[in-house]
């Protein structure tokens, strides 16, 4: 097999996504002159950073055979701590550390419930999401935490050498996760757990620990996303993080991850994020009600999952 055809096989999903992105770009550009302007695309990019870094963590968790539908709640609770820390006039680096630590702890808690108590991940994290949202309401009630200082705004609005800081954040997060996944024993263990948890246990992989670490890492990244969220909007409102879980899971699945675990692609997830964010932006620009966003993203998720399921059934049938 030539290296080119092997590339086409291994990167099939990524290539399809690139084509899909080009297609929606062409579609939206033909309907809106503003869509392909540098200003619009830069805005889309700056607003994609939170989802992109959560997507990286979600990819690892889904590859381990788990899922976390509570990331929006983790983002919200972390954002409350960040807001309160700002209000207490703590210095910016401390605020960042607090936000990221809260996220990590909540993720670790999810991981412990899934790995140690063996609660199915979707139920465990659904439960914790309701707890997190309740915490959000109990702490800030119906009001906003607003008027926060702009000491962290350079993270979302700043440029380095003409390139938005967000690009560097995304590159750092994806680089780190890629090395963990492909160049560290940990990533091979994670992948093996997603493939066959029993086999992973038999060869002596510390299954529970690796799972908890994956959830904790997702929590950490959700905490980091909360930092960026507060830095960008300088307030914490009641409906923060509502759609993050759906979008992150959709991006991961669009990017080629198997919902049953064992397979996934960080690059695919990143392309999935780009696709979702361009789609949302484009729909608004061509005047489609934002209510249709959910229909499009949720619908895509269902369609892609169905295709994956049919495909694996076909392959399975053929190989037997």
């Amino acid at each position: 097999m030539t290296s080119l055809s092997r590339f086409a096989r291994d990167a099939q999903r990524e290539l399809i996504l690139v084509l899909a992105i080009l297609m929606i770009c062409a579609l939206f550009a033909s309907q809106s002159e503003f869509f392909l302007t540098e200003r619009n695309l830069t805005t889309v990019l700056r607003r994609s950073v939170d989802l992109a870094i959560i997507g990286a963590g979600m990819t690892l968790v889904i590859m381990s055979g788990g899922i976390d539908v509570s990331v929006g709640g983790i983002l919200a609770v972390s954002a409350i701590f960040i807001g309160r820390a700002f209000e207490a006039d703590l210095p910016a680096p401390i605020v960042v550390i607090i936000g990221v630590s809260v996220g990590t702890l909540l993720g670790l808690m999810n991981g412990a419930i899934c790995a140690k108590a063996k609660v199915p991940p979707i139920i465990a994290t659904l439960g914790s999401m309701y707890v997190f949202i309740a915490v959000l309401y109990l702490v800030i009630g119906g009001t906003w935490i607003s008027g926060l200082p702009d000491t962290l705004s350079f993270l979302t609005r700043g440029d380095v050498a003409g390139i938005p800081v967000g690009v560097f954040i995304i590159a750092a997060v994806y680089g780190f996760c890629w090395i963990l996944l492909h160049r560290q024993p940990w990533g091979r263990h994670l992948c093996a757990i997603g493939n066959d948890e029993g086999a992973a246990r038999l060869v002596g992989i510390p299954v529970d620990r690796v799972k908890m670490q994956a959830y904790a890492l997702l929590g950490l990244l959700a905490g980091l996303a909360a930092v960026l969220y507060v830095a960008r909007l300088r307030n914490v409102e009641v409906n923060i993080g509502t759609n993050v879980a759906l979008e992150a899971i959709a991006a991961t699945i669009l990017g080629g991850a198997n919902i049953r675990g064992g397979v996934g692609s960080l690059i695919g997830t990143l392309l999935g994020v780009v696709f979702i964010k361009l789609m949302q932006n484009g729909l608004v620009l061509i005047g489609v009600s934002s209510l249709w966003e959910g229909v499009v993203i949720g619908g895509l998720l269902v369609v892609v999952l169905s295709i994956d399921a049919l495909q694996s059934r076909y392959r399975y049938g053929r190989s037997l």
Partner: protein
Amino acid sequence: MKGIVKRFGGVVALDRVDFGVRPGEVMALVGDNGAGKSTLIKVLAGAYEPDGGEILLGGRPVTFKTPQDAQKHGIATIFQELALAAKMPIADNIFLGQELTRKLFGIPFLDRRTMRNRTRQLLSDLDVHVPDMNAWVENLSGGQRQGIAIARALNVDANLIVMDEPTAALAVAEVDKVLQFIDSVRSQGKGVVVISHNIQDVFEVSDRITVLRQGRQIGVRETGATTPEEIIGLITGASAVKVRTRRPNRVPSEAN
């Protein structure tokens, strides 16, 4: 292994089982379904902790809390379920849980090249041919998968190799290859434990045979000094054999 006891809830899976292997010996472990064979070797492999009894290695008692403990003591196990990750490449599977690393800035990174070269070496030693080293294990044949599981066991420098039903899923030519492999391990002075349902294979390859029935060890025989009939009698209990010989025409339907 002396007086090994293992319970699952109220069920006694192993009841004071004694079991031993000498260096350079192939010990077959036989018994009916549910006799406790797989449970016994999972205790030996460190996958289960026994509720009683002790494991002696070279006369010294050892305890295994994890499969890695057993590997460190030179026991490599090929489980019946092979314990392979289907959607991962061959080398990743062979080194799963024991990846080779090299340090870069003090951080251990996977040493992929060395692992791939070692994998190639192991597979050619075993005469296992795979079309593509990067192929997922799920795309390989039963024999190739078995070969990969064996390669993983060989990769650990083991003194004792335990194989649970190594030939059950294989074609005839592949079975011969596995039996040859067992011979070559024995000639290196290593101990081998083979679990098998196939009495013919057992007699072909083993030096001694241990029989389990309903969680108890009920006999150890020198292979050269026993007969398949005696072993089958021990496995099923003598009365069962009588039933069989009285109604031979019922045997084919029992195969279902």
